[in-house]
Structure formats: C-alpha cells, structure tokens
C-alpha cells in the first residue's frame, strides 16, 4: 500500500471511529452512572437522523434543523426517563431490556408510520459541501473532516465536564458508588434525568450529524446499536475513556480489515472483542 493511501485509510478509520464514539459515549454514560442498559439507544440515533431530515426540509436550514432535532431528542430523553425508566432502577437488567426493546418497536413503528420505508437522504450543508484534493485521485469531503473535528470537540467537552465540574463529580461518584452518592444528599433523581437525557441526545446527535453521509432506512438504529455495544464492551462498560479508545480501535481495525482481509472483514471487530475479553475480561478500562 502506498504511503499516501495508507494515510487516507487511517483517516477513514479515525473518522469512522470518532463517529462510533459519539454514539457509544451516550450508551456507556447512561450505563456507567445509572446502571441502565438502554437497548433503544440505537433508535435515538435513527430518530435523530429522521428528525434532521424532516426539519431540514421544512426550515431549509440544516443548522436550524440540528438545533430543533437535538432539542426534541432531549425532551424525548427526559420523558422516557421520568415516566418509564424511573420505575426500573430497583429492578434487574432483564426488565430494563424488556422495556427498552419495547421502545425499539415503538420507535421503528413511528418511523415507518411518519416517514415511510423508502430510503431517504439529507443534503450536506452548503458551507461544508466541498472536497479537498488529497491525492491525485482522492478528494476528501470537508463534511467528513468537520464530523471528526466535531466528535473530538465533544470528546474534549465531555472530558472537561466530567473532570472539572460539579456535575462531572457527581457523575464520577455515581459511576463508582450510586448508593453512597444518594446517601450523601445528592438529588439522584435529577442527576439521572440529566444524564439520561444527555445520553440519548448524544446518540441522536450522532444520527443527526451522520444523516448527510448515511442513508436513512428502517432498521438503521439496530445496526448502529451492535457496533456500539462492541465499542462499549471493549472499552469497559461505563467507561467514557474506554469508549473513546475502543471506538478508535474498532474504526481503524475495521477499515484496514476490509481492505487487507476482505474475506473475513465482517467478523474482525468481533474477533478483536473476543481477543480483548480473553486478556481483559472487564474491557480495557473498567470504571
């Protein structure tokens, strides 16, 4: 492989990995702090993508649509937490799975009912629709570079919030010992609502910003969910840092495997997961 193409592939891998991080971070955050296994996480990715499609067409502005879609996702998150999840904190994971699988069906039916089953697409916003020539043949779409920058920005933002703010302190405390946090007088209910809403909004945001580079089809959420779980399991359930490292690892491995090991590329990330779990049964960074 030529050096320049190697670098392009590396860029592909990092860019894919960063997007995976954006989806997976919300899942791992919610699990880490609240102990809730939200299988409907992928559905929020899908809902985000369809919402931005809908509002971009209505308002004629991608950026406005992003803001509206994010706000709606956050409201959906609050509603789900306040009215449904709240009943499950004292129950085991199986009950959470039942509820959130049910939500998957509801979201899928809503998507099919509102937007139909034909594939849909969102235009790349005008401002970022150009491409940069990087080798003699390959141009790299500016929007994809923007996505990477955005994801890195969000990762840094999360790192800052978690390590340097009171909210972050509560999140960290919640990750390590939930009962203790509650006993120390933190309003755990509000904290959970905030964390859950942020978690699903991150997933929706991933769907929203990916919308111009993916096609909107029924079932897109479930596909994302699987990759997402691989990332979270490799990184260590509940660890944001782990999710970041694992997402990049999965993105890069998957990209190179599809070129170098075409016959078995569909299973490489699962092999990677299995391999890591053999040596680190709790994942790379167990919180």
């Amino acid at each position: 492989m030529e050096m320049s193409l190697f670098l392009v592939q590396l860029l592909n891998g990092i860019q894919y990995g960063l997007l995976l991080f954006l989806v997976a971070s919300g899942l791992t955050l919610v699990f880490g702090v609240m102990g809730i296994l939200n299988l409907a996480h992928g559905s929020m990715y899908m809902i985000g993508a369809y919402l931005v499609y809908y509002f971009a067409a209505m308002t004629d502005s991608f950026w406005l649509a992003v803001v509206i879609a994010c706000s709606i996702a956050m409201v959906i998150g609050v509603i789900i937490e306040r009215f449904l999840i709240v009943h499950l904190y004292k129950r085991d994971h199986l009950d959470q799975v039942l509820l959130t699988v049910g939500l998957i069906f509801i979201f899928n039916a809503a998507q099919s009912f509102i937007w139909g089953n034909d594939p849909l697409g969102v235009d790349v916003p005008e401002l970022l629709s150009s491409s940069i020539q990087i080798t003699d043949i390959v141009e790299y779409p500016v929007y994809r570079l923007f996505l990477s920058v955005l994801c890195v920005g969000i990762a840094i933002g999360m790192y800052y919030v978690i390590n340097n703010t009171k909210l972050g302190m509560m999140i960290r405390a919640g990750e390590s010992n939930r009962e203790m946090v509650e006993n120390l007088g933190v309003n755990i209910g509000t904290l959970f609502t905030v964390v859950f809403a942020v978690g699903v909004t991150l997933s929706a945001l991933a769907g929203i910003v990916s919308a111009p580079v993916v096609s909107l089809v029924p079932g897109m959420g479930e596909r994302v969910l699987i990759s997402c779980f691989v990332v979270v399991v490799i990184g260590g359930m509940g660890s944001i840092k782990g999710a970041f490292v694992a997402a990049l690892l999965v993105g890069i491995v998957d990209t190179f495997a599809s070129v170098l090991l075409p016959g078995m590329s569909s299973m490489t990330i699962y092999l990677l997961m299995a391999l890591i779990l053999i040596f680190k049964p709790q994942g790379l960074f167990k919180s």
Partner: protein
Amino acid sequence: MIFKNKTLRKVVLASSVMATSVLSGMSAHADESPIKIGVMLPYSGVYAGLGEAATNGLKQALKEKGNTIAGRPVEFIISDTEAKPARAPELTSAMTDKDDADFIIGPVHSGVAMGMIKSVRNKDSIMIIPNAGANAATGAFCQPNVFRTSFSSWQTAYPMGNQAIEMGYKKVVTLSWNYGFGKESLAAFSESFEAAGGEVVKEIFVPFPKTEFQSYLTEIASIKPDAVFVFFAGGGSVKFVKDYDAMGLKSKIPLIGSGFLTEGTIEAQGEAADGLFTTLHYADTLDNPKNKAFRAEYLSLYNKPADLYAVQGYDAGQLIIQAVEATKGNTADKKALIKAMEGIEIDSPRGSFHFSKAHNPIQNIYLRKVENGENVVVKTAAANLNDPARGCRL
C-alpha cells in the same frame, strides 16, 4: 385440531365430506366460485414499500376487469411474509392446503422465494413471483407451477458487460454486498464483459449490510480502473452513490451498475446520481402508450407515482387474467392453466414479453442514464434477452 372423542371426530369428518361435495357440486354447475389469489408479500420491515407497490399493481390489473375474470369473482387472501425466509414454508402451506389458493403471488425477497418454491412443489397452486430475482427460481429450482413476471439477477447485469466494452472500458473493478443478488449480478456482468475482451481487475464484496464504504473507495482510487460496476439496492445504493461522488471519484472513474442502483433511490441520491448508466428491464420514463396509461391510472388510484415493483405486480395480475380467460374460467385443470400461461404474451408497461421454457420473462433490457433526477432510456441494451436458466430441466 386434535379430537379425543371418536364420535366427535366422525361427525366432523362426515360434515367435511358433505361440505366438500356441496362445494364441488357448485363449481361443476355454475362456475361463479371465486378465483382465490393468495398474496404473500412483505408489508412490514425493510421491503414493506416494495410489497405495497406490488400489491397496488396487482389490484390495479384486476380492477381494470371489474375484479371478475371469465364471470368469476376474485378473492384475495393476503399474508405478510415480513421478508423472513424462515416463515415462508409455513405461510405457503397454509395457502396451498388450507386456503386452496389457485394462484400465489409472491414474494419480494429471494430467500423467501426459495422457501416458497419448495413448498409449492407438487401442489395445485400456481406461484407467480413478482420480484425476487434469484437465478435459481427459474434455474436449478424451476417448477412447472412457478412463473416469474419480474427478472432474473442475471438478466439485469449481463447486458452491462457489453455496454461497458462499447463505452471503451477495459479494466473494471466490481463491487457489491456479499449476498446472493449481488454475487449473481457481478458474475453476470463479468461473464459478458470478459467474453467481450474486458478484464475484471478486482472483485470486492462488502459484508452485508455494512454501509461504511470509505475504505473500499480508497482502495478503488488506488487501483484506478477504467470504470466501476456495482450492485446495490435501496439504502445501500443511496449511500454508495453519495460517497462515491463525495470522494471525487465520479468524474474520474465512471460508475455503472445494475438498474437497482438508481431505482426508487434517485431523490435521496440527489445530484450524486446524475450521469450514472445502469441496465434494467424497465424505466419510469419508458416511452410507450401502455406505460403512460398504466402510470396515469396508478397515480390516480394510489396518489403516488408507479415504480418497477408496481409494474411487476401489475403484470402478475395480467398473467392471471389472460390465463383464466384462456381456459374460460376453469382453474381446476392446473395443467391446462399452466399450458395457457406458457403461451401468453403480456402487454406490459415495460414492453411486451412472453415466458421462457423455465417460466422467466424473455424481455428487453434497457440502458438508462440518470438525467435531472430521472432514469432516461438511452437505448435497448439487449432485445428479448432470455435467461440461460442453468440447471432447469423444464
């Protein structure tokens, strides 16, 4: 039902014998019993849109006849396959044994088709496939009572090989998802392309249903072929065509494909699809009176434009109508019915076609180019193309 009481069982047996004799007595005199059309299409899941279009087309054809053929009313028995192959045998058996369907229309998905074909073997129902393109359906697994009004995968890709040579391409990379339809399409393209002197320098199979194509596009850029032939359908088509354009490849390495690349997807693909050449047995813009009339009526009935899947469903309806008219309403003699179907010429919106020995359409394949968001017919890429029906002994 399990009857533990022997007397009860006898009563039930006796009454069903009576019921059967009454029914057969009726049909022997005035043949006004309904013609039963079983419909096995997906109404939920990814292919729901296709199932709906095919059903609309089928109903449109029968509606044109006032839902009566040769004096007999038509009765639909609808069942949702959900495009799940595992459910196919059970649903099909219900149609053939419980509902006594004269015809079974379905399915969309090739995996479901294989399950259905096995289940209609030696049964009285005649199966008409309005989409599923697996070569084997009218190849190695062909049956006397299985017809297809759509296409074989081979038919939709084979003509592009010669077209690529005519366009001056010598080295081509082929790419598709690693599943039946994709593999058959790539093989058919390579068959004609290499026979005409071209060379497929690399065949890439992407795991289904992965849509992260960046690494493959980068690889294509490193190979620098004269053109790229792809098979994708639905969401995969939209994503691939957009990514191909965004990587700046479209203007440097022409993209060609089987017609499903730009079927029902152009709106979502936008400008990225402009100028793409594909081959298929239909195009919305096909300029013939039948197509125009069909599309106008479809639009007024369903309030949305007709597509390929509607045409295929419509032709399944036309086939039933013409066959039952030919036997003057007799659907009991299945051999005579099949014989009638084999000789029928269908006046389809795609242009007229008839059936091969293996019961697949012998039809024109068109070269189409995307212009202003439409598939415009450039020319007939292959006239009256007959699928080789490999492995079929009919």
